[in-house]
């Protein structure tokens, strides 16, 4: 079904954080849409489990890497090959009221959510690993736009990412390359919570319910596909119609 512009046939897409949650859903959706997917994550076993879920037909691969380690990040950039799309979905949360905030937590959150995707982008651009017209999608968060108690470091890391992509979008536009964020509100993933009572309580605030990993994956698909070839530097809100965003 490639008579419409929403497919990824012939495209090679690298997805970080692909061993669970949104990254895994994005990998499945991209493979389904015709892409060859390179999955990256820290845990070999869970990454292989993701790989096993991908549609047959594409030349899918899994590369284990901890992106907060410079050597492993460089190795991933080297092994990924030529790319048409990158989905930066590796990330961590981190809860601490500012009064209790420590350098260690700040470094962990900024390192995983901001520094790693920025440096991976730098490496890929420097190595000329991105084909003309390539699309990069970064996982921001509703938290970048709204205030929530206790998630200052996380919100800052995502807001930093949104600032970063606007510069990036202008720098790469001459080659038809694009950079965008998706900013989801609460999606039921292992990163958020595995407690059904907590998720049910949160769900009451959302007119359209909590998000599913697929909802984010499909927005990512739109932003990777040629359907969005003129969309760049945006942050697409995905929030189930939440009234206060």
């Amino acid at each position, binding site marked *: 079904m490639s008579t419409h512009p929403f497919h990824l046939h012939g495209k090679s897409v690298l997805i970080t954080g692909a061993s669970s949650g949104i990254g895994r859903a994005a990998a499945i959706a991209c493979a389904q849409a015709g892409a060859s997917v390179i999955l990256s994550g820290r845990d070999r076993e869970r990454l292989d489990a993701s790989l096993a879920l991908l549609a047959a037909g594409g030349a899918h691969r899994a590369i284990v890497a901890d992106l907060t380690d410079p050597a492993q990040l460089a190795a991933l950039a080297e092994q990924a090959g030529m790319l048409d799309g990158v989905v930066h979905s590796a990330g961590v949360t981190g809860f601490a009221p500012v009064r209790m905030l420590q350098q260690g937590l700040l470094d962990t959150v900024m390192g995983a959510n901001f520094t790693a995707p920025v440096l991976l982008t730098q490496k890929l651009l420097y190595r000329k690993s991105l084909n003309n017209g390539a699309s990069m999608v970064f996982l921001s968060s509703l938290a970048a736009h709204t205030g929530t108690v206790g998630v200052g470091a996380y919100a800052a890391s995502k807001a930093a990412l949104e600032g970063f992509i606007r510069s990036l979008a202008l720098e790469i536009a001459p080659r038809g390359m694009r950079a965008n964020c998706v900013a989801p509100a609460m999606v039921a993933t292992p990163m958020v919570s595995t407690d059904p009572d907590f998720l049910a309580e949160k769900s009451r605030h959302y007119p359209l319910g909590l998000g599913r990993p697929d909802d984010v994956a499909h927005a990512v698909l739109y932003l990777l596909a040629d359907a969005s070839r*003129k969309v760049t530097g945006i942050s697409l809100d995905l929030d189930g119609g939440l009234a206060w965003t």
Partner: protein
Amino acid sequence: MTLSPFSLDGKQVLVVGAGAGIGAATARLCARLGARVTLCGADAATLTQVRATLDGAGHVVVAGNLLETGGRHALVDALPVFDGCVFAGGSADTLRIDALTQQHLDAVFAANVHAPLLLTQALLAAHKIGHGAALVYVTGAVQHWAFGGVAAQAAGNAALNAAVRALAVEHAGQGIRANCVAPGVVDDGTPEAAPPIETPGPAPLGAVGPDDVAAGIAYLLAPASRWVSRTSLVVDGGLSLHVR
């Protein structure tokens, strides 16, 4: 192969302003994605020409004047129940504040704000918008950069955007989603009636075509955007990056 999340197979989609530009491109893409399209606009002959370019069968032309109450109600009566509605009509000449008149402001707001909102109201009242339907309103990225001469147009875009966000809250209980697409300067091949007073220069990614905007609209109509409401998707080739 499983159904693409972007498929509109079997869906009834209304496209207001389907006679040209973004509306016509949207009608074509929706039809290609499997929808049955109701093409709506002022001129039946133009709409019929566009309908002839659509894939599939069962597409309907409904011509009428959306700017007045009688026209709207006659139109709504003739329509089926929709799974998706796209409001793409409306445009505005550029005019500096010094030269603005009440008449110009009224005309811009009547076409770009009042018509889509009151047509939505009429469709809702007549139960022509189905449970879980997606509504998409075409505004303009000009509301973000607001260069000289676009006061009325930019104000209309911003007004519609705000109204759509309220609409989305009010009708979320019926599973209805409402979003905006904000195109930049779109080159649809037709010469401009009045040349703009100022232009913002070329977009970083080059000219935006009607098909590019239509693809964003189709995403917001499709099951792929099941969880998206109250948002505004900017499709401007990066033109408003400096001011966002």
